[in-house]
C-alpha cells in the first residue's frame, strides 16, 4: 500500500512540476538556474524495487530520466514509511532533512534548486491549510490546484 501511495504521488509530483514549469515563473526560473542536463533522483527506500524517479533538467524542460542511471544528486529515504510522510505532506523536505530521514548523494548545493522546485509544487498540490503546516513560505498560485491536477492527469 505504501509503495502504491509513493508511486501515485511521485507521478503527480513529476507531472505537477512539468505543468508548473509552464505556469509558475518562480519554478521555471529555479529550473533555468540549474545546470542543463543535471539529473535529480528520489528513491523512496534503499531496497531494490522501491518506487523511485529520476528527473532531468533538459534543454526542453523537465523530463523523466532513466531509472537505472545514477543521477547527479540522489535522495534516498531510509525507509518507505519516512518517504510516505514527506510525499503526503506530513513532513516537509526540510523536516525530513532535520530528522535524518534520507541520505543525499552528490553536491548538496546542486540539490537546493530542485528542492525549492519540489516545495513550490507541493504548495500547489496540497490544500493551503495543509501546505502551510510544512512550507516556510507558500507560493503565489498562478493556476488553481485543480488545474494542476487536471493538466497533470492529461499530461499537458
Amino acid at each position, binding site marked *: 500500500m505504501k509503495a502504491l501511495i509513493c508511486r501515485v504521488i511521485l507521478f503527480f509530483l513529476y507531472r505537477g512540476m512539468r505543468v508548473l514549469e509552464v505556469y509558475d515563473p518562480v519554478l521555471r526560473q529555479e529550473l533555468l538556474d540549474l545546470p542543463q542536463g543535471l539529473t535529480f533522483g528520489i528513491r523512496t527506500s534503499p531496497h531494490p524495487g522501491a518506487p523511485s524517479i529520476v528527473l532531468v533538467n533538459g534543454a526542453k524542460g523537465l523530463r523523466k530520466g532513466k531509472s537505472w542511471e545514477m543521477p547527479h544528486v540522489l535522495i534516498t529515504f531510509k525507509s518507505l514509511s519516512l518517504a510516505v510522510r514527506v510525499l503526503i505532506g506530513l513532513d516537509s523536505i526540510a523536516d525530513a532533512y532535520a530528522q535524518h530521514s534520507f541520505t543525499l548523494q552528490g553536491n*548538496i548545493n546542486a540539490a537546493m534548486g530542485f528542492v525549492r522546485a519540489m516545495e513550490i509544487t507541493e504548495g500547489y498540490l496540497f490544500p493551503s491549510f495543509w501546505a502551510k503546516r510544512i512550507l516556510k513560505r507558500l507560493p503565489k498560485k498562478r493556476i488553481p490546484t485543480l488545474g494542476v491536477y487536471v493538466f497533470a492527469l492529461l499530461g499537458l
Partner: protein
Amino acid sequence: MLPAYYEFQNAVKICSGLLALDRLSYELHSLHAKAPLVLSDATLRKLGLLDHVLSAMPDITPACVYTDIPADSGVSVVDHIAQLYRENECDSIVAAGGGSVLDTAKGVALLIAQGASHIKSLMGCDTLDRGHRVPYIAIPTTAGTGSEVTAVAVVSDPVHQVKLEYISTHLMPDVAILDVRMTQSLPPRITASTGMDALCHAIEAFSSTQKNPLSDAYAIASIRLIMENLEKAVRHPHDKQARLAMANASLLAGSAFSNSMVGGVHAIGHATGGLCHVAHGDAMAILLPYVMRFNEDCLQDIYSELLLYLGGPELYSQTAPARRAREAIHCVRRLAKRLNRISGLPLRLQDTGRVKAEDLPLIAEAAVNDGAMIANRKAITQKDALKILMHAY
C-alpha cells in the same frame, strides 16, 4: 518542546586542559597508530607549534609530515595528501591547526577509508559507511570552528568558487586534544574572529530546525563560556583560563551544530567566503546580527531565551518579554563592537576590503544554494539574502 525525532552523536574522546598534548603518544598507541601522517600549516611550523606536537610523540616517528595546507584548503590539496598517505604507508592522522587543516585531514581520512582518489566523488550527506578505519587525532590551534568534534568537513572548490560540504558521522576524529599551549599564540584579531564563529555556531545550533535537547545543552554551555571569556582572551592572550574556556566553548558549539546544523548566517557566509575570500570567522561576525534581525519575527521565543545566556540573568529579568529577542541581537552587536575596538574585528563587509558592492548579487545567488539554508527556520530567498548583504555591507 521535544522535536518529533532527532539524532545526536559525539563519539570523540576529549582531552582538555593541563598538559593535554603530552597524552598524544598514549592516545596514538591506544589507537594502534604506529606511522601517523602529521598535518599542519606553514605558519604553525614557523611558530614552533608543530614542534610541540612532534615532541609530544617521542616514541613514534611520523611516516610523513605535511605543512603546506593553505588557509582555504581545496579539493586538489585533499586528493594530493591522500596520495602521500598511501605512498608513505601511513596508518593514522594527527592534524594540528585551524579549521582548514582539520577539515583537510577529515577529507584525507574519508578518501582513505573509502578507498577513493578524488574527494569530489564522495560528496553528499549521510551516504557513506564507516569504511576502512583511519585513526585520527585532532589538535585545534584556533577556538572557533569546532571541527575537532564535528561530522562536517568544508572543502573549497576553487574552480566553481564554492565551498563543498561533506556530512557524515564517520568524519569525526577519534580524539580531540585541547591544550592552551596550542592557542596562546593566536593574535587578538584572529581570536576575536574565531570566537565569533563559535558564538555563531552556538546561536544557529540553538535556533535551527534540527535543534534538540542535547544540542541545546551544548549550545547554551558554549554561549555562557564565550560571553565570559572571549573578550578576556582577546585582551589578554596569555590568560590560560580564558584560552581554555574558549577552546571548550568552540568544541561545545561544534558538537551542538554538528548535531543540529547551522542556518542562514553560514549559508550567506560560505558564499561570501567562496566568492570573495573573506575569512570565515569575519563573515560570521559581520553577518550574525543582520541574519538574526531578519529571523527575529520567526524566532522570537528562541532569541528571547538566548538573552538569558547572552546578557545574563539581570539583563534578562530587567527586559520586558516583548523586547528580549531584540535585546539578544543587541548583545551580539555590542560584543562585536567591543571586539572591533580591541582588535579591529570588521563590522561590515566593506571593512574586510574584499567585498565590492557589485559582488553582493552573486553572493546572494550562491547563498540560497548552500546546504545550510535548509536548516534556517525562516525561508530566505535570493532577494532576502541580497537585502541582508546590503545591510551588512
